[in-house]
């Protein structure tokens, strides 16, 4: 879902926090369904990237109940932020008290994976050191 390896995700030390956070906002039932369907897609699409992608799109992202939650899970990993679910979702599922836009914690901000994806660091954290910015940037080709 994120394009990062298990090691990279665990390396953030945020997995437990997010795993507890999502059901606390959207409820156990929906979160459980999301996990079950994700698991099913993952088993069926294992080793076949295009198939996995198709399954995730069809079964999760295009699902009006699960899609917005899945996108928010990706936002947690990428940005360390929860975004208030879309109005259409809230019209169906009601208002959840914790469903507001917020940054989870100082750690979630510094561990946001978007910065790693673009070969830099979160502003005000994990500083690269004096003069590093004068050197040519790492690119995707170098990194892989």
């Amino acid at each position, binding site marked *: 879902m994120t*394009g990062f390896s298990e090691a990279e995700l665990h390396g953030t030390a945020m997995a437990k926090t997010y795993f507890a956070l999502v059901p606390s906002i959207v409820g156990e039932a929906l979160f459980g369904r999301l996990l079950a369907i994700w698991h099913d897609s993952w088993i069926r699409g294992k080793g076949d990237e295009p198939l996995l992608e198709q399954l995730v799109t069809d079964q999760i992202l295009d699902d009006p109940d699960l899609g917005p939650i899945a996108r928010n899970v990706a936002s947690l990993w990428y940005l360390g932020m929860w975004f208030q679910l879309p109005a259409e979702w809230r019209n169906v599922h009601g208002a959840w008290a914790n469903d507001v836009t*917020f940054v989870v914690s100082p750690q979630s901000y510094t561990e946001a994976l978007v910065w790693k994806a673009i070969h830099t*660091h979160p*502003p005000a954290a994990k500083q690269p050191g004096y003069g590093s*910015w*004068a050197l040519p*940037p790492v*690119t995707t080709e170098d990194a892989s």
Partner: protein
Amino acid sequence: MSVSQSPSGNYDAIIVGGGPVGAHVAKELVAKNKRVLMLEAGRAGGLTYQGYRSYVDTYYTRVIKDTNSPYPYNPSAPSPNDTDIVKIVKGTPDIIGYQVEMGPEAFGSTYLRQLGGTSLHWLGTTPRFCPNDFKLKTKYGRGVDWPLTYDELEPYYGQAEWSMGVSANKGDQEMHGIKFPRGYDYPMERIPMSYSDQVIGKAVKGKTVNFSGKDYPVQVSSLAQARNSIPRKGYTPVGAVGNPDVGQRCEGNGACIPICPVQAKYSALKTIAALLESPYFTLLAQAVVTKVTLGANGRVNGVEYVRYETEGLGPNATFTATATIYVLAGHAVENAKLLLASNVANKYNKEVGRNLMDHPFSYTWALAPQSMGSFRGPIQTSGIETLRDGDFRKDFAAFRTDVGNAGWDIVNYPPNGDVTEALGKNVFGKKLRSQLANTLPRQVRIGYDVEQLPEWKNCVEIDPTYKDALGCYRPIIKYDVSDYSWQAMVEAMKVSKVVFDALGIPTKDQHFHGRIAGVADSKHYTSPDGKRHPLNFIGAGHHIGTHRMGFTKSDSVVNSDQQSWDHDNLYVVGCGSMPTTGTANPTLTAVALALRSTKAMLGQLR
């Protein structure tokens, strides 16, 4: 000290405001064993290392990371915030937040009322003014002249650069007549230019723009910056307050605005922390000065201030403090507000609060065909400084060109939008990761700090209708931008065009005018040739004017020593004293002016 107590005794000087200007006045007076009381409206939380680090954590968790986002909200000494600034609807003031805006244009700049002042969130860019900036009227027939010249201020520039810790190479700064004495050098080597600066610099080599019939080079050069780099002989970098081993060098945190987490960037906290070692210096925070009072002889005989214990709640208590001289260093807007509330410094004219200026900041952006290494290093390390002066100033404003290092930063606040937009289009997994990697580092943003002329109608006012939680006046801002600056924004696009073309950016990826996220819809400006240009600007945070210095008591609030024409023991210091804006970020010049003014102050205290 509890709220019911007030420091007693006679002071030589009372300084209102603990920002970089007030701190430097205090530094000079205390060095000559003068007893100084500094009254700061905000809190002093940044004086401990842990307190400052808590601001960094606050920054991490703020959804909108605007200029004041790391610093605690304080209803007893409120500050204007970016999120309070909205498009002004004709006839309806914007009363959101602290600052009341009457328009017609939104005044999109903020400042911070807390110990250290706006130097907590400033970028740290410290160019000198050009000699011609001091004589705009004589040279180009625009605005007014200053009652002092570059040469008169020059020694104090050097003193300010060494006190604040400016990193630069002399050679990069010698242009438009800016000269240095023999043997002078900046205290630290220049901050390395970013990779994108170097790429742009190479691409535009030899290119020019034509302004008012004359060609000017488009040339990228290193900026003078008040952030620590490699020291030259005789200088020791000043690190974080309470933890001096931290922040000895800029580490490329990329968050200069709104907070340098390691304090490699100068803030007035450094100067004030050193002053606290002296028995001649007393600091009183959470003390909001509400009135300057006069004696029968017309001289200032005290300042009234309110101390609060808890922000917005109290208990509050009112006191009076007295000294021989009084120095208002509370920021251009706050100084004007206090003078107006006190009904002082207005015997000879109605200039107090007038001629409010900023550098209207317009910007352009593009997507380069290759990685520019964006989002690395200090937010800005270079500029195109060649258009800060020239004969075209007869026709339109000069400007400083800001070559950004943080992608499309103020354009659309990446990367949040990039991530959510991709997810909305069902881009996820490895595709999402590589899409971000292949776009964000290619973002280029070029902005313009445009000169603005003094105009009487642009002002700070007060009205009993608008008061804050403590019962103090909220500033009312009336602001407009004249064609002199609008036309410069149109001309500036030529510079962006040269840069973007030189980088080989396809036209479809070049963007010249902006919808400003959250602030306003696109505006339009019609140039003298009848062409209609979609155009927009935001504030640069450079509040200038409001108590300008001048040649006579009829044309200004203060003289060239920043001494009130009306009350000889009252000094009103800071960017508010500047008669025109030039194009330089004003803090260095405000500090240099303050250092110069301390000669007059010390003369009075002898």
